[in-house]
């Protein structure tokens, strides 16, 4: 058999709707036998934050960023119609009623299917995030060269 087909997804956005799309494509590709790498950078890093973790030794600015950024996948808001959180709440309720998987569920599924999640080291540094503040499934904290090596081997590359 030939080498597995690959998908590389850059998740730049920290918007709930866009991240849902990223994880639906990622888990769908993994379920179709493809090797999937997802690289989380900048606002996208919020998705990987673990709930309720306080890292020690952070500067004032780092702590401020930590307070202002969404605290994990459950804390993300819609890119449109958020309406101070009311729109996001309504959308989550509708999705639940229509049995659409939630973002935390999709992340779990992606991990079960062997999707590789990577965090961008430089963005983590800028936003003052530490390794222990990220969910356990993160495979590595990497730089652009790792992304490029994987993307160059991929038949599908997306920037979300």
């Amino acid at each position, binding site marked *: 058999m030939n080498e597995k087909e690959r998908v590389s997804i850059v998740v730049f956005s920290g918007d709930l709707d866009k991240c849902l799309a990223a994880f639906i494509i990622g888990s769908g590709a993994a*379920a*179709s036998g493809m090797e999937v790498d997802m690289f989380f950078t900048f606002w996208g890093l919020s998705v990987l934050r673990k709930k309720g973790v306080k890292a020690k030794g952070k500067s004032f600015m780092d702590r401020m960023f930590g307070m202002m950024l969404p605290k994990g996948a459950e804390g993300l808001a819609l890119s449109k119609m958020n309406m101070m959180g009311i729109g996001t709440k309504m959308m989550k309720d509708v999705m639940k009623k229509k*049995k659409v998987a939630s973002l935390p569920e999709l992340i779990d599924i992606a991990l079960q299917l062997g999707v590789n999640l990577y965090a961008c080291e430089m963005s983590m540094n800028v936003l003052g995030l530490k390794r222990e503040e990220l969910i356990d499934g993160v495979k590595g904290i990497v730089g652009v060269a790792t992304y490029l090596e994987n993307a160059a081997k991929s038949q599908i590359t997306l920037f979300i």
Partner: protein
Amino acid sequence: MENIKKTLDARGLSCPMPIVKLSQAMKDMNVGEVIEVLASDPSFVPDVEAWCRKTEQKLIKIDESAEIIKAYIEKVK
């Protein structure tokens, strides 16, 4: 139909879950065995066709005559 090893109930589930559950369910099946999938998501029809082409599994039949879609897939590899 012979050889139906199991039935996967994906009724009510939306994209991508029927495909995800199908891929997981087929992992512990043997070559030659058939899985029956029940689904209600209309996109499951084109999706299961595409999934079978992509993963090189054999789609034996899709029954869309009733409200519940039934697909039969044989594990060939």
